[in-house]
């Protein structure tokens, strides 16, 4: 007799079952709302334009544990006009953040590559912040057949 069974006895079987169904077994996953909130944290509410950013990620991945991702931004990378930062977010991992990278004219090209984890088929968003205070973005929908970070396989 666990504490939940005792609870069931006091609140009645039907309402107990209804409650049990809504219990989420793991920590809440990032939602489109969390994604929007994370984006707003970076942009501070400034408008985000589509374009200039190229988000290179396979549209269909077999293994979500290591998904290659490249973000390239069309920018002259001069002291007057360069990409200051590249932020990448996702929609359905436990957290919306993937990475933030800070760049400068010393990079010559606004280009960052890495490998990420995807817990589900979802949207991945890249946002570039320019030195002129503009925000540009690109997004891709990725289908994942084997999700990352589900359980310990070791």
């Amino acid at each position: 007799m666990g504490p939940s069974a005792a609870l069931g006895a006091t609140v009645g079987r039907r309402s107990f079952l209804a409650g049990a169904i809504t219990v989420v077994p793991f920590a809440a996953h990032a939602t489109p709302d969390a994604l929007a909130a994370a984006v707003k944290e970076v942009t501070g509410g400034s408008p985000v334009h589509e374009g200039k950013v190229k988000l290179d990620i396979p549209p269909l991945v077999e293994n979500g544990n290591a998904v290659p991702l490249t973000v390239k931004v069309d920018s002259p990378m001069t002291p007057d006009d360069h990409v200051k930062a590249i932020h990448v977010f996702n929609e359905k991992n436990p957290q919306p953040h993937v990475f933030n990278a800070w760049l400068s004219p010393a990079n010559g090209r606004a280009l960052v590559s890495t490998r990420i984890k995807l817990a589900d088929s979802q949207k991945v968003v890249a946002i570039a912040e320019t030195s002129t205070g503009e925000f540009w973005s690109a997004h891709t929908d990725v289908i994942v057949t084997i999700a990352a970070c589900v359980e310990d396989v070791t």
Partner: protein
Amino acid sequence: MANVLVSAPKTAKKGQVVEIKALIMHVMETGFRPGTNGRIIPRNIIQDFSATWNGREIFRMKMSPAIAANPFVSFSAVASESGTIAFRWSGDEGFLAEHQVAITVT
């Protein structure tokens, strides 16, 4: 000391844009996965990665649990002067790794 693999050209022409790749061995445990005993495995990730060229920061990245195990990062840099490119990874549980490569700019 962690296992680090860095790829950067040994020589470059001044003003040339070079590609730098850095890989480090690390579990990048997310802190969201239950282990075999059913308990959540505590988070253990690299949080920050930075690269400096002769002490001047050229690249910095803040990582989240969504970065794959054995984090790989590639970026570019303008070859400005001969010297060293230094890499630094830091994270949970006091993790710290540093690596340097030499580059000659002509």
